[in-house]
Structure formats: C-alpha cells, structure tokens
C-alpha cells in the first residue's frame, strides 16, 4: 500500500510537472493513482473527480486532499495537499522575488505587452467552453449575462453572485421545477 512519503512525492511530481493548471493534472493523477499504484478503482476515482469539481477551491488541491484522506486519513490528506501545492508555491515565490527587477528590462516589458492581450483571450475562450458544458440555452443565458454585467458594470462582489445563483437554483428546483 501507500506510505506517507510515497503519497507526498507522487503528488509533488504531479504538481511540479503539469503545465496548464488543474484540469491538465487530471489525467496524470489518474495514471498514477489508478493505473500505476492501484490505490483507487477507476469508478471511485470518477466519483472523487465529480465531488472535487463541485466544491469550491482549487480543483487539483481538492482532488489531492480527497485521495489522500481516502488512503491514509488526515495525515495522508496533509501529505497529498502539501505535495501538490508546494511546487507551484516554490516556483512562483522565486518568480515573485525577481520579477520586479526583470520587468525593468525593456525587452521583457515588450514581451509582456504582447502577452497580456493574448492572456485576456485565453480567459475569454474558456468562457464559451464552460457555457457549452453548463448547458447555457436561450432560456437561461440571462443568468451569466446579468451576472457578468453586475460584476463588471456595477462592481458587485462576485461572492454575492455565487450566493445568489446558488440560492436561486435551490428555490427554482424546490418550488418551481415540478410545475
């Protein structure tokens, strides 16, 4: 079975070598946890992914905590969580320490002038992907449109939008959906 140090190193490696954020980590976590070490059955893993996705917080961290806890309790969860968060933490800390100086170089500044509009597009694109997977249709497209306008135009705190849409869904489902 799994020892604490193996849990830590496995998730440390996953954290250190997966580019592109949480969802890019998913197949790699699955490969190690399900196929390589047989810690968890495939069907169980799919359930964990569903729960980790539904919960707030960083997806990869949620999944790591869940897997760690299932295997070795609280200490196991601590190992997997630390393991998956530590590489990003160390890398970004190093970048934060030196970026100020590097940003003063003119050619780096020029590069970031080109990068920034591209990054805005990289955030715009998943909006449409997410809209598809969230089943946005003509009848419910007012929800994302109104939410976006409230945050952008009226500077409403996104936390209120989260609470309002969750509550709205609950009320809608409980009292209106059967009619």
């Amino acid at each position, binding site marked *: 079975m799994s020892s604490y140090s193996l849990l830590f190193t496995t998730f440390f490696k996953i954290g250190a070598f997966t580019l592109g954020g949480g969802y890019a980590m998913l197949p790699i976590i699955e490969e190690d946890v399900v196929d390589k070490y047989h810690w968890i059955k495939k069907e169980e893993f799919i359930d964990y992914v569903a729960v980790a996705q539904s919960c707030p917080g960083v997806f990869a961290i949620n999944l790591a*905590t869940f897997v760690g806890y299932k295997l070795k309790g609280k200490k196991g969860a601590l190992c997997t969580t630390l393991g998956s968060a530590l590489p990003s*933490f160390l890398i*970004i800390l190093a970048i934060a320490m030196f*970026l100020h100086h590097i940003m003063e170089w003119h050619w780096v500044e020029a590069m970031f002038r080109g990068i*920034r509009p591209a990054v805005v597009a*990289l955030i715009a694109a998943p909006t449409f992907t997410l809209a598809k997977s969230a089943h946005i249709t003509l009848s419910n497209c007012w929800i994302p*449109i109104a939410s976006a306008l409230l945050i952008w135009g009226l*500077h409403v705190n996104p936390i209120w939008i989260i609470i309002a849409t969750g509550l709205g869904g609950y009320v809608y489902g409980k009292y209106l959906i059967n009619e």
Partner: protein
Amino acid sequence: MIFLQLFYTFFLIGLFGFGGGYGMLSLIQNETVHVHGWLSTAEFTNIVAISQMTPGPVGINSATYCGYTAVNNAGYGMMMSTLGSAVATFALVLPSFIMMIVIARMFMKYMNTPTVQHIFLGLRPGVVGLLAAATLMLLDKENFSSWAENPWQFSISVALFVATFVGTYWLHINPIRMIGYAAFAGLVLLY
C-alpha cells in the same frame, strides 16, 4: 495587519471559488485589484500569464504571488514577503482541505441529492458569468493601451487578442505556444 487581511481575503476566495482556476479569477481579481489595490490590472494579467507558463494551479500561483507582492509593496523585506505568500497560499488551501475531509467522511452520499443538483442548476450559469466578467474587467487600457494614447500598440493588442482567441478556441493550438507567439510579436512590434 496585512497578514490578517491576506489570510481573510484568500480564505474567502478559497471558500467561494467555484468552477476551478478560471472561475476563481474574477474573485481573485476583484479582491486583489479592486478591493485592496494590492495589484494593478497589468500585474494581475502578468500573473495569469506566468501561471499559464509554470506548472501548478492558477489559484495557488496567484495566491503565492499576491501574498509576496502585497507585503513587499507595503514596505517589508524579503523574509516578511515570503511569509506573506505562505499565509495567502495556506489560507486559500484551508477551506478546500477542511471541506474535502468533511465530505469524504460523511457527505459523499449527499452529493447526488436533488437539493445539491438544484443549487448547481443556478450556480453553473453563474460561474459562466463570473468568467465573462473576468474577461470584461481585463479589457482595459493597462492591457491593451488605447487608440488615443498609442494607436499602434492598441491595434497590435487587438490583433493579438483576436489571433489568440481564434488559435486556442477554434484551432486548438496549445495556449503556452500561443503565449510564446504573442511574446515574440511583442518583442518585435512593441519594443
């Protein structure tokens, strides 16, 4: 004081950040740029760019970077700033950690109940709106310059925005490669 603020802010972000890294962006942006003024819009966009190019989740990356920068901008040295990034990252992870253990222990069976499904019926479209808001808030002078200020840079910025959108959304070009192209274009055209 700033450490308490960092802890509280990133704890909230961790607690309400539905929809994964991108869904979290508008929360992070709202708190760090608009509420606390720890970062400028351009700095925030730089962090997202760096997060794309380095391993690890965007949420952790922004927490670590913001923690460091916020304390550093407040006039503290390297040690205190490092502590700031540790506090922010810890605060972001803490709600996940507690929640996942609680769910793993007792609420696993409740995750498929109608009540939870109903909440997500509203929450999912809401998160799409959050992501759209993150995009809208980033469409500004700091990231694109403006026609009045610098028509050349503005035109190039818009072209790079459109090219990256088409490239990643329709042509499925790897985002990191697109950032590489944009960096090269910036170097050649916007030096």
